[in-house]
């Protein structure tokens, strides 16, 4: 391509496009936006996104969810303890089996970490953490390379 011609072409087209100015928006847009805003404002809080709820309700709902989660976990462990007392308790504890198992796993892991801290020296722990970090960085690097290779621009 001729560089001089390209330059002339760019200048010529720029002149035409610069002369355009802005297009006039149809008045319908403003009406549609105001209608949508009115509908949103008129909607009750429970019909809106959680982020748009009043602050008190946001805090309350979050606290409620947290309490429910804690209650579920605590209840599951308590039920497991009384499961042997009656067939009904055994049945109910079965419903919470998964939550109970998850809590047990968390307990075991916590104990293992605590044990490791107590019995292994800080050097071994720091070394282990660095090794994990290195493995993670390697995975990330390899993934990035493969992704870039796969989606390389033609």
């Amino acid at each position, binding site marked *: 391509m*001729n560089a001089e*011609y390209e330059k002339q072409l760019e200048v010529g*087209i720029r002149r*035409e496009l610069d*002369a355009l100015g*802005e*297009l006039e928006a149809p008045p319908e847009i403003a009406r549609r936006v*105001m209608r949508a805003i009115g509908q949103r404002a008129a909607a009750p809080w429970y019909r809106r996104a959680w982020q748009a709820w009043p602050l008190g309700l946001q805090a309350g709902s979050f606290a409620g969810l947290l309490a429910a989660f804690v209650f579920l976990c605590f209840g599951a462990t308590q039920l497991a303890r009384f499961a042997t007392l009656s067939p009904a308790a055994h049945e109910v504890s079965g419903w919470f089996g998964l939550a109970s198992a998850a809590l047990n796993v968390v307990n075991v892991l916590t104990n293992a970490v605590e044990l490791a801290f107590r019995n292994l020296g800080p050097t071994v722990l720091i070394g282990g953490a660095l090794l994990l970090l290195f493995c993670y960085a390697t995975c990330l690097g390899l993934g990035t390379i493969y992704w870039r290779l796969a989606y390389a621009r033609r």
Partner: protein
Amino acid sequence: MTDTRQFEAFMRNYQNMVFSTAMRLLASQPDAEDVSQEVFLRAYERFDQLRDSPTAGGWLKTVARNLSLNHLSRYRSRWSFFSELVGGGREENEEHEMEFPAGESGTEILDRAERRVLVEQALQKLPVAQRVPLVLFHFEDLSYEEIAAKLGISLGKVKTDIFRARETLRRQLRLQLTDEPI
């Protein structure tokens, strides 16, 4: 003045700019209206920050551009494919040139308003693979590199598409250049 009234005034100040950005990228009035509506609904959510901000116009323009490109991205793989497949400016040859009486150039016979309408029409008729980079370059002031990064295509393709778009416009508008290619 209430918040809603203030927002309405704010919207009227910027609606042409937002609509123009969307319309030139999408070349479809219903789509451009949808995108403009979405832009202003997002602006309303953060109106407290935008109300007196000197960068409100820039924010609106960026959101309009990004939403328009998101809208187009659903079809991007298809138009990238066609753009590369067709190549060589074959698609431009299918376009019809604007009609001017013989012996007179377009600039001479049309007044400015008519000329603007013709240029807008020619712009909207460009294939999407040519129009989008051209609009991003000339109206959004993005560099070739920024356009390539935004559209996820190569720098060479951006330059070729913009050149083809200009060529198509030149032919359609019968622009006279002193150094025309043979």
